[in-house]
């Protein structure tokens, strides 16, 4: 049901949910829903620490708390684009990473695509970004294969 494709600086992650698009969109933009799933396994995201103002320039702030030791991971982002119920784009202030969430209406089901891009400072201009992503796309599979092989002591030629 889920599928991932990775480039060195871009993640594309998709999944289909058994729910109508409006509801899935609400889940991604309302603290009362986000608190149920925003923290990955072993963490929680208390509703009282979630701030969402889903409009361009509005904040998207969360705190993930490690269930085991109480460590806190606050994240702050600002919405770049909000098109209800189709698309959300936000940029994290601390990492400069941009996340685009696309909601596709499949009738009773909804496809959600997460496109997470890490953009080094040198690639902030739109032209540079376009080239960056295109080139990374081509590199995606290669990097995975290379890192898988490179761990071994006798590096065999990848073929």
């Amino acid at each position, binding site marked *: 049901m889920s599928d991932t494709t990775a480039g060195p600086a871009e993640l594309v992650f998709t999944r289909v949910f*058994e729910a109508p698009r409006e*509801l899935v969109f609400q889940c991604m933009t309302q603290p009362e829903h986000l608190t*149920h799933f925003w923290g990955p396994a072993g963490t929680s995201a208390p509703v009282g620490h979630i701030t969402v103002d889903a409009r361009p320039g509005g904040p998207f702030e969360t705190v993930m708390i490690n269930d085991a030791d109480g460590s806190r991971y606050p994240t702050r982002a600002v919405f770049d684009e909000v098109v209800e119920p189709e698309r959300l784009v936000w940029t994290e202030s601390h990492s400069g990473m941009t996340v685009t969430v696309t909601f596709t209406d499949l009738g009773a089901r909804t496809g959600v695509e997460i496109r997470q891009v*890490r953009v080094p400072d040198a690639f902030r201009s739109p032209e540079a970004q376009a080239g960056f992503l295109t080139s990374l796309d081509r590199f995606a599979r290669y990097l995975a294969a290379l890192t898988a092989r490179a761990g071994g002591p006798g590096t065999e030629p990848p073929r």
Partner: protein
Amino acid sequence: MAVAQDQLDATFTALADPTRRAIVARLAQGDATVNELAAPFDLTLPGISKHLKVLERCGLISRTRRAQFRPCHLEAGALDPAAAWIDDHRRIWAERFDKLDAHLHEIQRAPDDGPGPASAAGPAPANERIRQ
């Protein structure tokens, strides 16, 4: 996620260039001299050297001192942080989506399925209140 951001940026930036990726791919098959690396490209030796310096600076390759050929060597371990970053974020979204899937099932449960919060008002109470 304890990886230095600057190092990641340097690695990703270095790999964003197709020539440098081709160099890395070539070196994955074994060490090579600058001349050997330059052969498949329409590039001058100084042009190749520039790319090698970028790769060297971020630790992706190293050059031995022996002989005048100074063969280039791929430091494959230097790719690990980039791969780890990708894995981290892939895992985070996978786990979030697992939870979201469960949450969507929960809030869409038909009223006679159990003592869920769903009421006659609708199948999806958007403002279901959760305790902290």
